[in-house]
């Protein structure tokens, strides 16, 4: 490659960034939303009431399964995280696989009562989309996202090298100067949140390191099960004794767990072979209880409630991995830090979006025939509109579908997700068939209208609308609705800006005519 290192890095940055930029935009948008996945889930299950109460949730779930699933093979209880209310529990009947878990899933509210909430995957769906995408086999999706993350890491490093005036331009943002402004915006959102961008990309790769770099594991272990047993502890199911025993109260075991962990909260409860005299209760520490996200598992004798010996503390490598994943997902983060994460996520989203627009902005002035750009240019231009305006609108549709789909629709959670892609697809069509500038204005306006509609629809379909929430001091619901309005305002502002922008090509024509 000729030219200095800066030129070659600029080339690398441009093309690596463009190739997977659209996928990175989706990863950033859904990942940023996922920092508030518990709050999103709460908003999407308005039937769940009461306050966060782990003991009530655990007792309610156990009581329900003792009555309705006494002979199940395993009970699983996901306790509410610090910011959540609902406890999700499900059981597995003999011969079933965990893929069928939704067949026997139910929710317990903050009062310990089973509650018939609408069927939804809530914020969890957006979290999974962040690395599993949708409609694709999970393994393929993770390879794709991993590739995008690797490209992102390359783009960050090459971007820092190629951006020569990183310190001179530190606070610089010049509006209304075409390509210069896009570059400023791109640099600013990249440089100011650089610690976050680097951390999030690197640790993101670590979360799925065993999939992306399997050779170390296959060199040292005969099979993957042996590796997992070694790394995370063997998880042998207890053998059935054949005689029954009543389970000791779960509250006592939760109390012991908290004492053992110096006050850290439990997150999951597993009860293999419930009701059997050999049964055990496994309590796993909450993923949000510390920066290390892989919590310790404590095992209790189900019949007596006596705790077994504690497992050995994890080794340094495992603990490092655990902290890295914790840093990435931010589950430990208290509210202020969570907003910092969110802000950095938004900066990342803006960085990708401005980078994509910059690609076209830079080339528009050099087009041989501005009226008829070459195919590649048109493709990138349309893809940008379809992604940057289309995906946010899809997410607004996802929230609206949660409120508007009939309650008894079969596979309701999947239909909510389908509506995300229907909304997105509609804007893709608009982005392709309309003239470029009109397409930007129209798609951004539609997306703004979509977010504006979410609180309105909420107000009409539930008794937990914005004004009621504000009145009751229900900050989770109120903040969600206010965030929708803020996003509507942001997208509307962008639409208005594009609408008022002078047509670059025409201005140049006029100048040439004058000259």
């Amino acid at each position: 490659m000729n030219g200095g290192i800066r030129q070659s890095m600029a080339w690398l940055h441009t093309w690596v960034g463009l190739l997977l930029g659209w996928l990175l935009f989706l990863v950033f948008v859904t990942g940023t939303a996922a920092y508030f996945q518990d709050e999103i889930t709460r908003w999407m299950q308005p039937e769940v009431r009461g306050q966060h109460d782990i003991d009530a949730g655990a007792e309610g779930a156990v009581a329900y399964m003792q009555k309705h699933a006494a002979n199940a093979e395993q009970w699983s209880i996901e306790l509410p995280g610090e910011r959540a209310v609902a406890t999700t529990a499900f059981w597995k009947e003999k011969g079933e696989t965990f893929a069928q878990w939704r067949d026997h899933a139910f929710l317990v509210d903050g009062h310990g009562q089973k509650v018939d909430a609408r069927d939804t995957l809530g914020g969890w769906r957006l979290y999974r989309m962040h690395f599993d995408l949708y409609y694709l086999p999970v393994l393929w999706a993770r390879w794709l996202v991993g590739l995008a993350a690797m490209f992102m890491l390359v783009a960050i490093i090459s971007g820092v090298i190629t951006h020569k005036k990183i310190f001179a331009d530190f606070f610089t943002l010049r509006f209304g100067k075409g390509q210069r402004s896009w570059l400023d915006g791109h640099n600013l959102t990249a440089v100011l949140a650089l610690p976050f961008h680097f951390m999030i990309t690197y640790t993101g790769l670590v979360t799925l390191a065993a999939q992306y770099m399997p050779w170390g594991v296959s060199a040292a272990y005969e099979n993957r099960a042996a590796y997992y047993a070694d790394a995370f502890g063997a998880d042998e199911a207890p053998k059935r004794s054949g005689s029954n025993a009543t389970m000791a109260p779960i509250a006592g075991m939760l109390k012991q767990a908290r004492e053992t962990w110096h006050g850290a909260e439990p997150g999951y409860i597993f009860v293999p072979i419930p009701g059997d005299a050999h049964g055990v209760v496994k309590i796993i520490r909450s993923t949000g209880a510390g920066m290390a996200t892989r919590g310790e598992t404590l095992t209790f004798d189900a019949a007596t409630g006596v705790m077994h010996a504690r497992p050995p503390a994890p080794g340094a490598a495992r603990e490092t991995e655990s902290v890295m994943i914790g840093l990435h997902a931010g589950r430990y983060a208290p509210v202020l830090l969570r907003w910092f994460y969110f802000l950095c996520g938004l900066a990342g989203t803006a960085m990708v979006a401005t980078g994509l627009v910059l690609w076209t902005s830079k080339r528009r002035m050099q087009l041989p025939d501005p009226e008829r750009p070459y195919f590649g240019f048109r493709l990138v231009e349309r893809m940008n509109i379809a992604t940057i305006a289309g995906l946010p609108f899809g997410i607004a549709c996802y929230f609206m579908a949660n409120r508007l789909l009939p309650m008894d629709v079969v596979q309701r959670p999947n239909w909510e997700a389908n509506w995300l892609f229907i909304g997105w697809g509609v804007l893709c069509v608009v982005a392709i068939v309309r003239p470029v500038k009109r397409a930007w204005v129209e798609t951004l306006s539609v997306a703004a209208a979509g977010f504006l509609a979410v609180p309105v629809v909420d107000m009409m379909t539930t008794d937990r609308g914005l004004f009621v929430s504000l009145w009751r001091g229900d900050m989770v619901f109120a903040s969600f609705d206010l965030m929708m309005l803020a996003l509507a305002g942001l997208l509307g502002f962008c639409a208005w800006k594009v609408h008022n922008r002078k047509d670059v090509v025409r201005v140049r024509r006029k100048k040439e005519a004058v000259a």
Partner: protein
Amino acid sequence: MMLLCLLTALLGFAALSMGMSRHQRDVLGKALPAARTRSVKLAGWLLLAASWAAAIASDGAALGSVYWLGALTFGALVVALSVTRLSR
């Protein structure tokens, strides 16, 4: 303590931006003397260090440092937008 961390990060970046000739011209309308520029810059760096200290005092070295990096990004973004807004 966290508020102090945020505030010092914000002030630190404000001082650093005023230590740069481009922003001196844009915001103040004139260049500061070299000695003033140097002291403003020094104050900026000291404030950023104080911000880190405040974060560590509040939440310990590990969590505090993460907070600090978040506060830095927030502070720098606010300063960048203000500088743009105040430019004449």
